[in-house]
């Protein structure tokens, strides 16, 4: 306020000396989006930057989502993130978007065991599904990223994924016909940088919430489960099936890492151990949520199982011993010893976690 008064005083003095210049009017508040450095008198036209909050609804049985204070979800940011997620402009040859390997009908995962990057190079992990990731304490199969913002930095420059450079991506976006305005509206920035690209993508990913499956409707008393589904539900939550220790609660994951006995030593993929350099973490991988698991085949970090039946059979037959195998894989080589009916029931229950809205919503 004082500054404005001073400015006004200076302007007046200025006028006194320079009568030949026409008085300029406009927005004189430098915090406004239409601030005019040349304006001398404020004409009340100032427009201030504002966004519309995008309210994340916490599903029943979920904790509050941990949203970074410097990147609140906004309607503008989420819409921008969604556009970026589906835009091939983020890849080196303009042929791939995030959505190319994270397909919505597959719960934003890749139906292929390994994804193929723009140069035809093939990875060695199955592209993770993106379901309720706003509640994940860490991301990627090996926990190599903590936040969604951090995670989104990686695929764009990875040579076996989108293989571009951030400088190049920034230049393309800044030269684009639409993006400068969209970023201005979402973040009030005049130059698009990599930080704001990943912030927008992270905002969009936080809205990929699935909590309207048949199972949810059952819990809300809106529908019934079949006898087989109920049987699977009981096995899932018993010591007999013991699925719940890692896939418990309505989140159907534990936010932890485990070696679930897929392979004996020597390990070909160290997983978490490669990130932490701790041998006790070797061959441990992040527990995925089981929500929409029917849609996100194939399964495991390396996509080795193509059906849920194969997954259940892995646990049913017990798994392989190794130095880091989880103690909860208690009966190695023996397994759960479920009957065929129990195995079918378990798969039937897993399919009640499918949320068709989630994979079709625009």
């Amino acid at each position, binding site marked *: 306020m004082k500054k404005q008064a001073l400015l006004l005083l200076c302007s007046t003095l200025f006028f006194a000396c320079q009568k030949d210049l026409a008085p300029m009017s406009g927005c004189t508040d430098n915090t406004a989006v239409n601030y005019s450095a040349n304006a001398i008198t404020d004409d009340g036209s100032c427009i201030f930057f504002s966004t519309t909050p995008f309210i994340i609804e916490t599903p029943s*049985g*979920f*904790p*509050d989502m941990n949203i970074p204070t410097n990147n609140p979800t906004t309607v503008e940011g989420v819409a921008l993130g969604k556009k970026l997620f589906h835009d091939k402009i983020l890849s080196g040859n303009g042929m791939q978007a995030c959505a190319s390997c994270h397909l919505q009908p597959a719960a934003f995962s890749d139906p292929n065991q390994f994804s193929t990057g723009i140069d035809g190079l093939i990875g060695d992990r199955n592209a993770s599904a993106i379901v309720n990731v706003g509640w994940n304490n860490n991301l990627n199969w090996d926990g190599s990223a903590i936040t969604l913002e951090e995670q989104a930095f990686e695929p764009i420059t990875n040579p076996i994924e989108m293989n571009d450079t951030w400088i190049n991506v920034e230049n393309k976006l800044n030269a684009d016909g639409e993006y400068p305005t969209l970023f201005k509206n979402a973040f009030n920035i005049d130059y698009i940088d990599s930080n704001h690209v990943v912030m927008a993508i992270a905002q969009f990913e936080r809205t990929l919430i699935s909590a309207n499956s048949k199972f949810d409707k059952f819990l809300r008393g809106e529908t019934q489960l079949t006898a087989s589904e109920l049987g699977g*539900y*009981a096995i899932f*939550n*018993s*010591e007999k099936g*013991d699925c*719940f*220790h890692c896939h*418990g*609660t309505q*989140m159907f*994951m*534990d*936010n*932890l890492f485990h070696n679930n006995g897929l392979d004996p030593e020597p390990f070909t993929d160290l997983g978490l151990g490669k990130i932490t350099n701790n041998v*006790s973490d070797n061959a441990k991988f992040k527990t995925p949520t089981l929500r929409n698991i029917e849609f996100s085949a194939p399964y495991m970090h390396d996509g080795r199982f193509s059906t849920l039946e194969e997954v259940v059979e892995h646990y049913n037959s017990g798994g392989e*011993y190794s*130095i880091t*195998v*989880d*103690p*909860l*894989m*208690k*009966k*190695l080589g*023996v397994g759960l010893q479920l009957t065929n009916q129990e195995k079918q029931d378990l798969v039937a229950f897993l399919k009640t976690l499918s949320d068709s809205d989630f994979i079709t919503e625009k």
Partner: protein
Amino acid sequence: MKRIFVIFTTISLVFTACEKEEEEIIEGCTDTGAVNYNTNATNDNGSCKYNLSLNFTHTVDGNLLETDQMIYSNAATQNYSVQTLRYLLSDITLHSANGTSTLLDEVHFITISDPSTFNLDIQDLNSANYTAISFTMGLDALKNITDNYLNESFFPSFSWPDFMGGGYHYMQLEGDYTTTFQGYATHTGGTDGIDFSFTKNFPISLNIANTNTTVIINMEINNWYSNPNIINLTTDGIMDNANKQALLQANGITDVFSVFYPIN
């Protein structure tokens, strides 16, 4: 104390008489060992607060726990290792001679994968003679309710399925046993609607004024399996086994926990 105050006041009055620009009396905590020691305070107004550190330690046969090593042997003469140890202590409370009690923490989660959970700092304790410390292993029936602790770090991994009574695990003690490396999972909690939490109360003699004080709460892991009930490790889960839970609870009450405090 009273005498010091009287002398102090007298001096002040004399001082005032001689010098008009006398310093005014500033109320505050004058104990340099207190966390809120006020260097400017001239008169102690009893507001001093003290720091107490609770340290949670874990031993097997009296030696500090080493994880992932098949080096332990229980009362049933089984070899075993410890890979995971997580547990909840609740209602951690100090009791003072005048009968008042001070709740230090409602629920504290300890996991050996995160050493920062081994320490609980209490910054705002009043000076008093504390005569006992008590805590509950696990969560009592009033607390042990599904969705009660959604935003705590032990959610979701510590949840106990509604199918088996709901709520939370009290403890997850896991590792391998025997030479063929089978997994065991000593998971305690409320089972079949029965509350298996238990409260331990340890007499102490602690006057925490003047210094930072550390009190150690130790869990002797082997004692979960030994006294009075010798418990065999098995590959069977025990969360649906109220009998096993009762045996573990009895052992837990006997001698799993001990408390160490500095002798003044």
